[in-house]
């Protein structure tokens, strides 16, 4: 029997604020343990939370980027459970009345239009971190670092709209791009700024009813997400195949073992005893303010891709590639305008520019080549001043020195030689030194012409205008002049 996976994701995105959600401590990553803490985020007796307005703004930004309905009033609730890195014995989250609901993400995947519905976006605080190893006495002790405690998170919950592990991984990548573009999250999964849990069930293909779902935790890379889902879909399908039943439970992705392992069953599931947090009044948002956040949202990847296709005639693949990186897209648009040639700008950016950035490991913003200088370079090629091959050398020099292309061409005398008089000697030399090729051409093997053009180009260090060389050679060969 063939089974269809049904997958939904729960994504935790750290909101890009300077300070924590309920106190003034820094959210900077990598500080010494317990150096960014205060009575509030340590949950000391008597301390009280006060909501950070910037966190609200970023959460609303997240919600509108995902096309959600942002509610006028939402309620903070306490999620009660005991764990050493949870200093208050409860996490402040939102439950019955979240910040936003009913959104969606529309995108192209494998050439097909997709739509994944977003169930809800709510705000919550992160817990601290339990450190179980790395200390001399880690065998018998766990250390706690509360720097993360109170870091603002948006929890984004999708509907179970994904139908394959690979599709889930690509959707998560898409979501990451959106959060990056919206400026609400840094997308850094190694540092834990973006984390993902997945709910997965399987059902016989064609069936309507959903199977029993399993939650998988600890999926902190796209690869782990896909591998864990693959494993889990295989496990559940095999179980059903054998006539067994899937148990509703929470499982953990075991990175080393490449498998999921049971963490707790439905019976062992916590009763979180959610109730409205009496320390925080309802969060009431002004609809004009929400509208202004929506208007202030930068262009998101999908919209930008459509625009790049429409405005610049780019093929979808190129447009998608550029649209995913806001810096790259704006570089492209400025270069295309400066060059008056969008296709050439796109080719340069996805080719030489991208290669250079990758080699140097820097972003486009740090590149010495500017959109204006790249535009000028393309104009030099299009105007016939230099050839494409010379242009590649000029680009390397621009990238190394930051000098404008005109200056490099001028200083190094790289202008293309288009003058028949000037090229005459090189053409004659090529003909005289390559009698065999001349003979071939004259017996009708016109392919030999390319070889002769190459000889002339080499002799002129690439500066010869290939079109002119072509004409001169043809003329000489056909008239018998040598």
């Amino acid at each position, binding site marked *: 029997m063939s089974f269809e996976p049904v997958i939904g994701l729960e994504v935790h995105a750290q909101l890009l604020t300077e300070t924590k959600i309920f106190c003034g401590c820094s959210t900077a990553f990598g500080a010494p343990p317990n150096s960014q803490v205060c009575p509030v985020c340590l*949950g*000391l*007796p*008597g301390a009280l939370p*006060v909501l950070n307005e910037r966190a609200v703004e970023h959460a609303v930004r997240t919600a509108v980027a995902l096309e959600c309905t942002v509610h006028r009033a939402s309620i903070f609730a306490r999620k009660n459970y005991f764990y050493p890195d949870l200093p208050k014995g409860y996490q402040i989250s939102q439950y019955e009345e979240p910040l936003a609901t009913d959104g969606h993400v529309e995108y192209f995947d494998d050439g097909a239009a997709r739509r994944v519905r977003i169930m809800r976006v709510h705000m919550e605080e992160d817990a601290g971190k339990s450190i179980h190893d790395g200390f001399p006495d880690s065998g018998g002790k766990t250390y706690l670092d509360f720097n993360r405690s109170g870091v603002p998170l948006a929890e984004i919950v999708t509907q179970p709209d994904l139908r394959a592990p690979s599709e889930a991984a690509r959707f998560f990548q898409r979501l990451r791009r959106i959060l990056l573009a919206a400026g609400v999250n840094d997308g850094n999964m190694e540092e834990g700024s973006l984390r993902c849990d997945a709910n997965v069930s399987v059902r016989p293909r064609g069936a309507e009813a959903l199977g029993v779902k399993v939650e998988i935790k600890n999926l902190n890379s796209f690869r782990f997400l896909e591998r864990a889902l693959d494993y889990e879909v295989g496990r559940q399908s095999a179980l059903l195949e054998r006539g067994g039943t899937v148990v509703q439970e929470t499982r953990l992705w075991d990175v080393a073992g490449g498998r999921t392992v049971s963490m707790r069953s439905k019976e062992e599931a916590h009763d979180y*005893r959610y*109730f409205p947090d009496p*320390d925080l009044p309802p969060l009431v948002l002004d609809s004009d303010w929400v509208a202004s956040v929506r208007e202030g949202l930068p262009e998101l990847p999908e919209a930008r891709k459509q625009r790049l296709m429409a405005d610049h005639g780019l093929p979808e693949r190129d447009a998608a590639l550029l649209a995913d990186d806001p810096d790259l897209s704006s570089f492209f648009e400025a270069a295309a305008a400066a060059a008056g040639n969008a296709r050439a700008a796109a080719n340069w950016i996805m080719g030489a520019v991208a290669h250079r950035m990758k080699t140097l490991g820097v972003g486009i913003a740090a590149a010495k080549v500017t959109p204006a200088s790249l535009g000028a370079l393309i104009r030099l090629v299009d105007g016939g001043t230099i050839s494409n091959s010379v242009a590649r050398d000029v680009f390397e020099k621009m990238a190394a020195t930051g000098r404008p292309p005109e200056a490099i061409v001028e200083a190094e005398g790289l202008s293309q030689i288009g003058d028949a008089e000037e090229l005459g000697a090189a053409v004659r030399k090529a003909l005289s030194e390559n009698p065999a090729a001349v003979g071939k051409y004259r017996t009708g093997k016109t392919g030999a012409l390319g070889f002769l053009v190459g000889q002339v180009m080499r002799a002129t260090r690439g500066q010869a205008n290939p079109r002119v060389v072509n004409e001169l050679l043809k003329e000489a060969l056909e008239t018998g002049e040598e």
Partner: protein
Amino acid sequence: MAGAARPADAETASSIRDAVRSGHRSAVEVCRHYLERIAEDDGRWNAFTAVFRDEALARAAEVDRHRNEWRDRPLLGVPITVKDVICTRGQPTTAASRILAGFRPPYNATVAARLREAGAIVVGKTNCDEFAMGSSTEHSAYGPSRNPWDPERTPGGSSGGAAAAVAAGLAPVAIGSDTGGSIRQPAAFCGIAGLKPTYGRVSRYGLLAFASSLDQIGPLARTVADTALVLGVLAGHDPHDATSVDAPVDDYTAALSGDAAGLRVGVPRALLGYGDAGIDSEVLAAFDKALVALAAAGALVVDVELPHAEHAVPVYYLVAPAEASSNLARYDGVRYGARAAAAEGGDGAGSPLAAMYDRTRDAGFGAEVKRRIMLGTYALSAGYYDAYYRRAQRVRSLIRRDYDRAFDTAGPGVDVIAMPTTPAPAFRLGEHLQDPLAMYLGDVFTVSANLTGLPAISVPAGFTAARLPIGLQLVGRAFGEATLLRLAHAYERVQEGPA
């Protein structure tokens, strides 16, 4: 014996402040006097959990050095006590619980900072029921406090130490907290004034939370004028407390005109007939006399209906424990306070971690706290939440609506609602210990003010034949402390009339 409870040299905060301000007395001299009174006498009342002799004297000396510069500070040189549920930096703050043995907070509660800024000198921490849960101060890891009017009786609770300290003349004013009557009931039992301000009037930052939506800090003092003086220092918006309200702070002292002319006082007659425990006849008689006195002070007494107020006790005993069960989760032995030794294997609860939690909380919390954590956990549990917590919150809204209607000028339009503070005077130590329900029912008149957030004060309203104090409770409009205090003060003046 009872006469000793109200020493002849009883002073008010304002008279001390005036004497220090004018240089008539030094702050050190005043401070030393009260420290001596505590040292001599607190063995009888057990009102204090900690006394900060050296720090208090050092601060008093500082006040004396800055006397001119600080002359406008409203509590200049006034010794004051703070209930043990309020954080004072670097000083023991235990909520009278074993689980916080040795805990010294690294920060000051906003009220502690405000008192200091106002020139007051914190001389010590006062005893209370553990985490403010109780009505007798018997549920304290430090043992019970005693009532200065009769040491065999409770001073009330949970701010029993605060009330006993003021009544015994060990401090002119005390800071308490009130979640269901914990300032007003001890004030009534000890024959002093105690004010619970409007929810949000005084910052809760640094108050060890019992029930966050009900808790409020307020003063206990010998006179209404002193509660007004101290409220002026405590009140005001605090950016560290999202539930504190940014409303203007009135000049409460200036509001004490001495008469109640034009004020309408509502009496919920139907409520007074209610109660399984019934109302003590001497308390009712004192209340009737108080109504006459209010009228004599110029107030117009009218009847009001509070049809849902009779449900206040059950509502309170769902909402407060529910919040407490969550608020007290942080006392787990992991980061501060007492921790039970890690157990090998565990106690059948699973992991050694779970066993550590169990043992720490079992050893650290007393019976009443455990009882309320269990009640609250149950009320919030899946499958019971709607029937208990959510329903209780609905009834709470109905109670608030009753009060709004009574205050509404389209209805009775009263300014203040009057009722006894407690259905009976101070009970004997141990009398209700085996019967928690009887103890809870004693809160029938006080809990409504917390459920509605309204300000309420208890003022002395005479004595029983056995010389036990009786309290009159007045409940005001939200942020109507100025009017509430004016009426309480006018009543106090009539009371004090020719003996």
